């Protein structure tokens, strides 16, 4: 049995930790609300296109929904998945590499099929 290296937080440290945890959780809930809003905007934009409201052409709607989707993915990755926290350098590297190839592959397939 190895010697335990548990560190005990003092009462003040514990209260501080709990306060920070509550603040962080509140931030997560705000980010969630933001993602719901982004989803609403995406769907709303497409419904406006369907209703043929002036100004909502496909050249406007398509870039907008992709932008909103990209922002939402960023929020989810960085906040929900803790990608912004310390110690996430390697995951970030591999994820971005995955995204780069993930963008190139569909582009390659589309070019092969449709050019």
């Amino acid at each position: 049995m190895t010697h335990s290296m548990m560190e005990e937080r003092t009462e003040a440290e514990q209260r501080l930790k709990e306060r920070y945890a509550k603040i962080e959780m509140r931030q997560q809930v705000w980010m969630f609300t933001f993602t719901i809003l982004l989803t609403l905007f995406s769907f709303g934009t497409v419904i406006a296109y369907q209703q043929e409201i002036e100004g909502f052409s496909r050249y406007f709607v398509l870039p907008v929904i992709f932008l909103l989707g990209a922002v939402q993915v960023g929020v989810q990755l960085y906040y929900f998945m803790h990608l912004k926290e310390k110690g996430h350098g390697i995951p970030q590297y591999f994820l971005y590499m995955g995204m780069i190839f993930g963008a190139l592959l569909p582009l390659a397939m589309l070019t092969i099929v449709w050019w």
Partner: protein
Amino acid sequence: METNERFTKETWPAHPETATLEGKNKFLGFWLFLGGETILFATLFGTYLALRNSGPSGYEFTTQNLFDLKLVFAMTLLLLTSSLTSVYAIYHLRNYNFRGVQFWMAMTALLGTGFLMFELYEFVHYVKLGFTFGSSAFSSAFFTLVGTHGLHVAVGLVWVTLLILRNAKRGLNLYNAPKYYTFSLYWHFIDVVWVFIFTVVYLMGVIS
């Protein structure tokens, strides 16, 4: 730190999921796995984008007339909320509240099951209309992409159910903390993929 040591709120590490070497390895390994899954879904997206609306001539199913945005919106809300409930579970994980972890993971499973029920209903509806896996390039690409995502959701549901049941008597310790955290990462990832699916398949599909 021993993985089976007894803790209190004051001694529980701030990041229990990476407090042991096993936890650190699982954390890194799982992120690498997610990088690989990104490529997997990218290939399925590429195939779908290339083949959407392609079918035998006179094929009556197009992205414009097939998809129901109300259903997709409901499914999106369910999955997004299930991501939030898993965030709550990890909050409780980090604050040494085992009942909180179990409760919010169960909520995640419930919402995920709701999502899957809706998706099954959608697929059965399409098959009844004649839009089946083998009926056209478009349909097979669609069912492969969305079906693979649904399969990932189903696997996640089995995983979280097992986690909840097998750890019910164990309480929180450094053995199961990385397991819960890994599941949470997986669940967020399939939510991220769903954001891409509803944007590229459904929203883009409705636009001619």
